[in-house]
Protein backbone atom coordinates (compact mmCIF):
# COMPACT_ATOMS: atom_id res chain seq x y z
CA UNK A 1 0.00 0.00 0.00
CA UNK A 2 1.38 3.43 -1.00
CA UNK A 3 0.74 6.12 1.62
CA UNK A 4 1.45 9.76 0.85
CA UNK A 5 1.75 12.34 3.63
CA UNK A 6 1.45 15.80 2.13
CA UNK A 7 4.54 17.94 2.63
CA UNK A 8 3.65 21.63 2.81
CA UNK A 9 5.73 22.56 5.88
CA UNK A 10 2.51 22.11 7.83
CA UNK A 11 3.94 21.39 11.26
CA UNK A 12 4.37 18.17 13.15
CA UNK A 13 4.19 15.64 10.28
CA UNK A 14 6.87 13.44 11.83
CA UNK A 15 4.45 12.26 14.53
CA UNK A 16 1.99 11.10 11.86
CA UNK A 17 4.74 9.22 10.02
CA UNK A 18 5.87 7.57 13.29
CA UNK A 19 2.27 6.60 14.11
CA UNK A 20 1.96 4.92 10.71
CA UNK A 21 5.29 3.16 11.29
CA UNK A 22 3.95 1.78 14.58
CA UNK A 23 1.16 0.24 12.46
CA UNK A 24 3.80 -1.30 10.20
CA UNK A 25 3.20 1.13 7.33
CA UNK A 26 5.93 3.13 5.61
CA UNK A 27 4.66 6.52 4.41
CA UNK A 28 6.21 8.94 1.93
CA UNK A 29 6.40 12.62 2.83
CA UNK A 30 5.92 14.38 -0.49
CA UNK A 31 4.63 17.38 -2.42
CA UNK A 32 5.07 15.59 -5.78
CA UNK A 33 1.76 15.65 -7.62
CA UNK A 34 2.31 12.31 -9.38
CA UNK A 35 3.25 10.52 -6.17
CA UNK A 36 0.22 11.97 -4.39
CA UNK A 37 -2.13 11.09 -7.27
CA UNK A 38 -0.87 7.50 -7.41
CA UNK A 39 -1.01 6.86 -3.64
CA UNK A 40 -3.59 4.44 -2.23
CA UNK A 41 -4.17 6.71 0.76
CA UNK A 42 -3.35 10.36 1.38
CA UNK A 43 -2.81 11.97 4.80
CA UNK A 44 -2.92 15.72 5.25
CA UNK A 45 -1.70 16.67 8.74
CA UNK A 46 -1.17 20.23 9.86
CA UNK A 47 -0.54 22.63 12.68
CA UNK A 48 -0.07 26.34 12.82
CA UNK A 49 -1.75 29.15 10.99
CA UNK A 50 -4.24 28.87 8.09
CA UNK A 51 -3.10 31.78 5.90
CA UNK A 52 0.56 30.74 5.74
CA UNK A 53 -0.47 27.11 5.17
CA UNK A 54 -2.66 28.19 2.22
CA UNK A 55 0.20 30.23 0.76
CA UNK A 56 2.48 27.19 0.90
CA UNK A 57 -0.18 24.95 -0.71
CA UNK A 58 -0.65 27.51 -3.48
CA UNK A 59 3.10 27.83 -4.04
CA UNK A 60 3.25 24.09 -4.73
CA UNK A 61 0.03 23.90 -6.75
CA UNK A 62 -1.49 21.63 -4.11
CA UNK A 63 -4.55 23.85 -3.73
CA UNK A 64 -5.71 22.74 -7.19
CA UNK A 65 -4.51 19.12 -6.91
CA UNK A 66 -6.05 18.14 -3.57
CA UNK A 67 -9.73 18.75 -4.51
CA UNK A 68 -9.32 16.42 -7.52
CA UNK A 69 -8.11 13.41 -5.50
CA UNK A 70 -10.36 10.35 -5.41
CA UNK A 71 -8.57 7.95 -3.02
CA UNK A 72 -9.31 7.91 0.75
CA UNK A 73 -7.95 11.15 2.17
CA UNK A 74 -7.50 12.05 5.86
CA UNK A 75 -7.04 15.62 7.04
CA UNK A 76 -5.77 16.08 10.61
CA UNK A 77 -6.19 19.21 12.80
CA UNK A 78 -5.30 22.22 10.60
CA UNK A 79 -5.45 19.72 7.72
CA UNK A 80 -9.16 19.39 8.50
CA UNK A 81 -9.83 23.12 8.77
CA UNK A 82 -8.10 23.80 5.43
CA UNK A 83 -10.73 21.63 3.70
CA UNK A 84 -13.42 24.22 4.51
CA UNK A 85 -14.44 27.33 2.57
CA UNK A 86 -13.20 30.16 4.72
CA UNK A 87 -11.47 30.79 8.08
CA UNK A 88 -11.61 33.75 10.43
CA UNK A 89 -7.90 33.16 11.11
CA UNK A 90 -5.34 35.66 9.84
CA UNK A 91 -7.91 38.38 9.27
CA UNK A 92 -9.92 36.09 6.97
CA UNK A 93 -8.50 33.36 4.75
CA UNK A 94 -10.04 31.51 1.81
CA UNK A 95 -9.53 27.75 2.12
CA UNK A 96 -9.64 24.75 -0.24
CA UNK A 97 -13.45 24.62 -0.39
CA UNK A 98 -13.72 20.82 -0.43
CA UNK A 99 -16.26 20.83 2.42
CA UNK A 100 -18.98 23.44 2.97
CA UNK A 101 -17.99 24.84 6.38
CA UNK A 102 -16.57 28.14 7.61
CA UNK A 103 -13.94 28.02 10.37
CA UNK A 104 -14.50 30.30 13.38
CA UNK A 105 -12.64 31.04 16.62
CA UNK A 106 -13.68 29.76 20.05
CA UNK A 107 -14.58 32.63 22.38
CA UNK A 108 -12.00 32.53 25.21
CA UNK A 109 -12.97 32.80 28.87
CA UNK A 110 -11.50 31.93 32.25
CA UNK A 111 -13.65 28.78 32.26
CA UNK A 112 -13.19 27.80 28.61
CA UNK A 113 -9.59 28.58 27.76
CA UNK A 114 -8.34 28.87 24.21
CA UNK A 115 -6.60 26.89 22.72
CA UNK A 116 -9.01 24.04 23.48
CA UNK A 117 -6.16 21.82 24.63
CA UNK A 118 -6.30 18.31 26.03
CA UNK A 119 -8.40 15.16 26.07
CA UNK A 120 -12.08 15.53 25.28
CA UNK A 121 -14.83 13.10 24.32
CA UNK A 122 -16.30 12.18 20.94
CA UNK A 123 -20.04 11.76 20.45
CA UNK A 124 -22.55 11.07 17.67
CA UNK A 125 -20.08 8.86 15.85
CA UNK A 126 -21.26 7.87 12.40
CA UNK A 127 -18.52 6.61 10.11
CA UNK A 128 -16.50 3.45 9.40
CA UNK A 129 -13.59 5.61 10.59
CA UNK A 130 -14.84 4.95 14.13
CA UNK A 131 -15.36 1.19 13.95
CA UNK A 132 -14.53 -0.30 17.36
CA UNK A 133 -14.89 3.04 19.18
CA UNK A 134 -17.54 3.92 21.72
CA UNK A 135 -19.42 7.14 22.33
CA UNK A 136 -17.49 9.25 24.88
CA UNK A 137 -14.09 7.81 23.95
CA UNK A 138 -11.31 10.34 24.55
CA UNK A 139 -9.03 11.92 21.93
CA UNK A 140 -6.45 14.72 22.12
CA UNK A 141 -7.34 18.18 20.80
CA UNK A 142 -5.24 21.34 20.35
CA UNK A 143 -6.99 24.10 18.43
CA UNK A 144 -8.30 27.64 18.72
CA UNK A 145 -10.60 27.57 15.67
CA UNK A 146 -13.33 25.09 14.83
CA UNK A 147 -15.77 23.97 12.16
CA UNK A 148 -19.42 24.19 13.25
CA UNK A 149 -21.64 21.11 13.18
CA UNK A 150 -23.30 20.40 9.82
CA UNK A 151 -24.54 17.56 7.65
CA UNK A 152 -20.87 16.70 6.91
CA UNK A 153 -20.17 16.10 10.64
CA UNK A 154 -19.35 12.47 11.46
CA UNK A 155 -18.31 13.03 15.10
CA UNK A 156 -19.00 15.86 17.52
CA UNK A 157 -16.99 17.50 20.27
CA UNK A 158 -18.22 20.04 22.79
CA UNK A 159 -16.41 23.11 24.24
CA UNK A 160 -18.91 24.32 25.42
CA UNK A 161 -20.62 24.71 22.06
CA UNK A 162 -20.86 21.59 19.86
CA UNK A 163 -18.30 21.52 17.04
CA UNK A 164 -17.18 19.14 14.30
CA UNK A 165 -14.62 16.72 15.74
CA UNK A 166 -14.62 14.90 12.39
CA UNK A 167 -16.11 15.55 8.95
CA UNK A 168 -16.53 13.69 5.69
CA UNK A 169 -17.57 14.31 2.13
CA UNK A 170 -17.08 11.53 -0.43
CA UNK A 171 -13.46 10.31 -0.11
CA UNK A 172 -12.42 13.27 2.05
CA UNK A 173 -12.30 12.39 5.76
CA UNK A 174 -10.88 14.73 8.36
CA UNK A 175 -10.47 14.91 12.13
CA UNK A 176 -9.95 18.00 14.28
CA UNK A 177 -8.12 16.04 16.99
CA UNK A 178 -4.64 14.54 16.76
CA UNK A 179 -5.39 10.92 15.96
CA UNK A 180 -1.62 10.22 15.93
CA UNK A 181 -1.41 11.40 19.57
CA UNK A 182 -4.65 9.95 20.91
CA UNK A 183 -3.31 6.73 22.42
CA UNK A 184 -5.10 3.46 21.56
CA UNK A 185 -8.27 5.26 20.40
CA UNK A 186 -6.31 7.32 17.89
CA UNK A 187 -4.38 4.29 16.70
CA UNK A 188 -7.66 2.48 15.99
CA UNK A 189 -8.92 5.44 13.92
CA UNK A 190 -5.72 5.44 11.84
CA UNK A 191 -6.08 1.67 11.37
CA UNK A 192 -9.68 2.13 10.28
CA UNK A 193 -8.60 4.77 7.78
CA UNK A 194 -5.96 2.46 6.33
CA UNK A 195 -8.67 -0.21 5.95
CA UNK A 196 -11.12 2.06 4.08
Amino acid at each position, binding site marked *: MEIAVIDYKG*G*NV*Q*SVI*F*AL*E*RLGVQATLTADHDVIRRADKVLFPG*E*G*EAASAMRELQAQGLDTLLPTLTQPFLGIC*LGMQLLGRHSEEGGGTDLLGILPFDVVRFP*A*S*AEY*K*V*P*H*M*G*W*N*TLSKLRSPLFTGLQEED*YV*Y*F*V*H*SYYAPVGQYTIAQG*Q*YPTPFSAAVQRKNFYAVQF*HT*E*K*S*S*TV*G*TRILENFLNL
Partner: protein
Amino acid sequence: MLTKRIIPCLDVKDGRTVKGVRFEGLRDAGDPVALASRYAREGADELVFLDITATNQKRATLVALVRDVARELDIPFTVGGGIGTVTDVEALLLNGADKVSINSAALARPELIDELAARFGSQCIVVAADARYNDADGWQIYTRAGTNNTGRDAVEWCREAADRGAGEILLTSMSNDGTKDGFALDITGAVSRAITIPVVASGGAGSKQDFTNVFQQAHADAGLAASIFHFGEIGIRELKEHLRQDGIPVRL
Protein backbone atom coordinates in the same frame (compact mmCIF):
# COMPACT_ATOMS: atom_id res chain seq x y z
CA MET B 1 -16.09 17.30 28.65
CA LEU B 2 -12.50 18.54 28.53
CA THR B 3 -10.56 16.67 31.20
CA LYS B 4 -7.92 17.88 33.61
CA ARG B 5 -4.51 16.62 32.52
CA ILE B 6 -1.95 14.70 34.59
CA ILE B 7 1.58 15.30 33.33
CA PRO B 8 4.68 13.47 34.58
CA CYS B 9 7.79 15.57 34.06
CA LEU B 10 11.03 13.86 33.12
CA ASP B 11 14.14 15.90 33.79
CA VAL B 12 16.80 14.69 31.40
CA LYS B 13 20.56 15.10 31.44
CA ASP B 14 22.89 13.34 29.02
CA GLY B 15 19.98 11.27 27.74
CA ARG B 16 19.01 9.96 31.19
CA THR B 17 16.12 10.90 33.45
CA VAL B 18 17.03 12.63 36.69
CA LYS B 19 15.10 14.54 39.35
CA GLY B 20 16.59 16.95 41.80
CA VAL B 21 15.10 17.97 45.11
CA ARG B 22 15.00 21.75 44.81
CA PHE B 23 17.21 21.23 41.74
CA GLU B 24 20.06 19.76 43.78
CA GLY B 25 21.18 16.21 44.55
CA LEU B 26 20.16 14.53 41.30
CA ARG B 27 18.97 10.93 41.39
CA ASP B 28 18.84 8.66 38.34
CA ALA B 29 15.30 7.49 37.59
CA GLY B 30 15.91 5.62 34.38
CA ASP B 31 15.73 5.59 30.63
CA PRO B 32 13.48 8.39 29.27
CA VAL B 33 11.97 6.41 26.38
CA ALA B 34 11.12 3.41 28.56
CA LEU B 35 9.76 5.67 31.30
CA ALA B 36 7.70 7.68 28.78
CA SER B 37 6.12 4.55 27.32
CA ARG B 38 5.30 3.25 30.79
CA TYR B 39 3.57 6.51 31.71
CA ALA B 40 1.59 6.50 28.46
CA ARG B 41 0.37 2.97 29.20
CA GLU B 42 -0.56 3.93 32.77
CA GLY B 43 -2.75 6.79 31.53
CA ALA B 44 -0.59 9.91 31.62
CA ASP B 45 -2.24 12.59 29.49
CA GLU B 46 0.97 14.24 28.31
CA LEU B 47 4.65 14.25 29.20
CA VAL B 48 7.15 17.03 29.68
CA PHE B 49 10.87 16.54 29.07
CA LEU B 50 13.05 19.16 30.68
CA ASP B 51 16.68 19.16 29.57
CA ILE B 52 18.21 20.62 32.70
CA THR B 53 21.70 21.01 31.29
CA ALA B 54 20.73 22.20 27.84
CA THR B 55 22.26 25.63 28.20
CA ASN B 56 25.74 24.13 28.39
CA GLN B 57 25.26 21.31 25.93
CA LYS B 58 24.90 20.74 22.28
CA ARG B 59 21.39 20.47 20.90
CA ALA B 60 22.05 17.21 19.08
CA THR B 61 21.49 14.99 22.14
CA LEU B 62 18.10 16.54 22.81
CA VAL B 63 16.99 16.31 19.18
CA ALA B 64 17.97 12.62 19.13
CA LEU B 65 16.05 12.02 22.34
CA VAL B 66 12.97 13.78 20.96
CA ARG B 67 13.08 11.57 17.89
CA ASP B 68 13.42 8.40 19.95
CA VAL B 69 10.52 9.42 22.19
CA ALA B 70 8.27 10.48 19.28
CA ARG B 71 8.86 7.15 17.56
CA GLU B 72 7.48 5.27 20.57
CA LEU B 73 4.99 7.58 22.23
CA ASP B 74 1.30 7.87 21.22
CA ILE B 75 0.48 10.78 23.54
CA PRO B 76 1.67 14.41 23.26
CA PHE B 77 4.88 15.67 24.81
CA THR B 78 6.56 19.00 25.46
CA VAL B 79 10.29 19.65 25.45
CA GLY B 80 12.00 22.44 27.36
CA GLY B 81 15.25 23.54 28.93
CA GLY B 82 17.60 26.16 27.56
CA ILE B 83 15.73 26.59 24.29
CA GLY B 84 16.40 30.05 22.95
CA THR B 85 16.10 30.38 19.19
CA VAL B 86 13.65 29.84 16.35
CA THR B 87 16.13 27.30 14.92
CA ASP B 88 16.14 25.28 18.17
CA VAL B 89 12.35 25.19 18.25
CA GLU B 90 12.10 24.20 14.60
CA ALA B 91 14.52 21.28 15.04
CA LEU B 92 12.58 19.93 18.02
CA LEU B 93 9.16 20.27 16.35
CA LEU B 94 10.39 18.72 13.09
CA ASN B 95 11.66 15.71 14.99
CA GLY B 96 8.36 15.03 16.70
CA ALA B 97 7.95 17.26 19.77
CA ASP B 98 4.35 18.45 20.06
CA LYS B 99 5.14 21.55 22.10
CA VAL B 100 8.28 23.41 23.07
CA SER B 101 8.63 25.38 26.28
CA ILE B 102 10.77 28.48 26.58
CA ASN B 103 11.77 30.19 29.79
CA SER B 104 14.89 32.37 30.25
CA ALA B 105 15.12 33.26 26.55
CA ALA B 106 11.58 34.66 26.63
CA LEU B 107 12.37 36.78 29.67
CA ALA B 108 15.57 38.06 28.07
CA ARG B 109 13.75 38.96 24.86
CA PRO B 110 9.94 38.70 25.09
CA GLU B 111 9.52 39.27 21.32
CA LEU B 112 10.74 35.70 20.91
CA ILE B 113 7.26 34.56 21.98
CA ASP B 114 5.63 36.60 19.19
CA GLU B 115 8.10 35.27 16.64
CA LEU B 116 7.62 31.64 17.63
CA ALA B 117 3.82 31.92 17.75
CA ALA B 118 3.74 33.54 14.30
CA ARG B 119 6.06 30.93 12.84
CA PHE B 120 4.78 27.72 14.41
CA GLY B 121 1.39 28.64 15.89
CA SER B 122 0.50 29.38 19.51
CA GLN B 123 -0.62 25.80 20.11
CA CYS B 124 2.95 24.51 20.33
CA ILE B 125 4.55 27.38 22.26
CA VAL B 126 4.59 26.94 26.05
CA VAL B 127 6.05 29.63 28.26
CA ALA B 128 7.55 28.13 31.42
CA ALA B 129 7.50 30.59 34.30
CA ASP B 130 9.37 29.89 37.55
CA ALA B 131 7.90 31.90 40.41
CA ARG B 132 9.18 32.34 43.97
CA TYR B 133 7.49 34.13 46.87
CA ASN B 134 8.96 36.67 49.22
CA ASP B 135 7.11 38.86 51.71
CA ALA B 136 8.45 42.13 50.31
CA ASP B 137 7.66 41.66 46.64
CA GLY B 138 5.12 38.80 46.50
CA TRP B 139 5.44 36.26 43.67
CA GLN B 140 8.27 37.10 41.29
CA ILE B 141 9.74 35.38 38.25
CA TYR B 142 13.15 33.73 38.53
CA THR B 143 15.53 32.30 35.95
CA ARG B 144 18.65 30.11 35.98
CA ALA B 145 17.12 27.29 38.02
CA GLY B 146 15.68 29.71 40.52
CA THR B 147 18.85 31.66 41.31
CA ASN B 148 18.19 34.90 39.42
CA ASN B 149 15.31 37.21 40.36
CA THR B 150 14.12 39.04 37.25
CA GLY B 151 12.12 41.48 39.38
CA ARG B 152 9.04 40.74 37.29
CA ASP B 153 5.67 40.12 38.90
CA ALA B 154 4.50 36.57 38.15
CA VAL B 155 0.92 37.39 37.13
CA GLU B 156 2.04 40.29 34.96
CA TRP B 157 4.63 38.18 33.15
CA CYS B 158 2.17 35.35 32.47
CA ARG B 159 -0.34 37.89 31.15
CA GLU B 160 2.28 39.37 28.83
CA ALA B 161 3.33 35.91 27.60
CA ALA B 162 -0.31 35.07 26.81
CA ASP B 163 -0.83 38.40 25.03
CA ARG B 164 2.27 37.79 22.94
CA GLY B 165 0.93 34.47 21.69
CA ALA B 166 1.93 31.71 24.11
CA GLY B 167 -0.46 28.75 23.89
CA GLU B 168 0.04 27.57 27.47
CA ILE B 169 1.75 28.59 30.71
CA LEU B 170 3.76 26.06 32.71
CA LEU B 171 3.85 27.71 36.11
CA THR B 172 6.35 26.29 38.61
CA SER B 173 6.46 27.49 42.18
CA MET B 174 10.12 27.41 43.18
CA SER B 175 8.95 27.98 46.76
CA ASN B 176 7.03 24.69 46.68
CA ASP B 177 9.19 22.60 44.33
CA GLY B 178 10.58 19.52 46.05
CA THR B 179 8.69 20.12 49.28
CA LYS B 180 5.77 17.70 48.63
CA ASP B 181 3.62 20.11 50.66
CA GLY B 182 1.23 20.78 47.79
CA PHE B 183 0.99 23.13 44.83
CA ALA B 184 1.09 26.91 45.31
CA LEU B 185 -2.67 27.45 45.17
CA ASP B 186 -2.61 31.24 45.51
CA ILE B 187 -0.33 32.10 42.59
CA THR B 188 -1.69 29.29 40.40
CA GLY B 189 -5.23 30.57 40.97
CA ALA B 190 -4.20 34.17 40.36
CA VAL B 191 -2.51 33.33 37.05
CA SER B 192 -5.34 31.05 35.94
CA ARG B 193 -7.91 33.79 36.56
CA ALA B 194 -5.78 36.46 34.85
CA ILE B 195 -5.35 34.73 31.48
CA THR B 196 -7.48 32.73 29.06
CA ILE B 197 -4.87 30.17 27.91
CA PRO B 198 -4.36 26.89 29.78
CA VAL B 199 -2.20 26.82 32.92
CA VAL B 200 -0.16 23.80 33.99
CA ALA B 201 0.58 23.83 37.73
CA SER B 202 3.98 22.53 38.83
CA GLY B 203 5.97 22.28 42.02
CA GLY B 204 5.07 20.76 45.37
CA ALA B 205 2.84 17.78 44.55
CA GLY B 206 3.09 15.20 47.32
CA SER B 207 -0.35 13.61 47.54
CA LYS B 208 -3.44 12.84 45.48
CA GLN B 209 -5.33 15.47 47.41
CA ASP B 210 -2.81 18.09 46.26
CA PHE B 211 -4.03 17.54 42.70
CA THR B 212 -7.68 17.78 43.76
CA ASN B 213 -6.88 21.08 45.45
CA VAL B 214 -5.03 22.61 42.50
CA PHE B 215 -7.89 21.74 40.14
CA GLN B 216 -10.77 22.71 42.45
CA GLN B 217 -9.27 25.70 44.25
CA ALA B 218 -6.74 27.11 41.76
CA HIS B 219 -8.53 26.16 38.50
CA ALA B 220 -5.38 24.71 36.94
CA ASP B 221 -5.92 22.95 33.62
CA ALA B 222 -3.20 20.39 34.27
CA GLY B 223 -1.00 19.21 37.13
CA LEU B 224 2.64 18.30 36.65
CA ALA B 225 4.91 16.32 38.95
CA ALA B 226 8.09 14.29 38.76
CA SER B 227 9.50 12.35 41.69
CA ILE B 228 6.19 11.16 43.17
CA PHE B 229 5.55 9.44 39.84
CA HIS B 230 9.11 8.29 39.11
CA PHE B 231 9.53 6.53 42.42
CA GLY B 232 6.06 4.99 42.39
CA GLU B 233 4.75 6.93 45.39
CA ILE B 234 1.56 7.70 43.47
CA GLY B 235 0.34 5.73 40.45
CA ILE B 236 -1.23 7.68 37.58
CA ARG B 237 -4.30 5.46 37.55
CA GLU B 238 -4.95 5.60 41.29
CA LEU B 239 -4.49 9.38 41.15
CA LYS B 240 -7.06 9.69 38.39
CA GLU B 241 -9.51 7.42 40.21
CA HIS B 242 -9.13 9.66 43.26
CA LEU B 243 -9.79 12.76 41.15
CA ARG B 244 -12.85 11.20 39.55
CA GLN B 245 -14.27 10.40 42.99
CA ASP B 246 -13.76 14.06 43.84
CA GLY B 247 -15.87 15.02 40.83
CA ILE B 248 -12.97 16.19 38.63
CA PRO B 249 -13.20 15.19 34.95
CA VAL B 250 -10.30 12.91 34.00
CA ARG B 251 -9.57 10.48 31.19
CA LEU B 252 -9.67 6.93 32.61
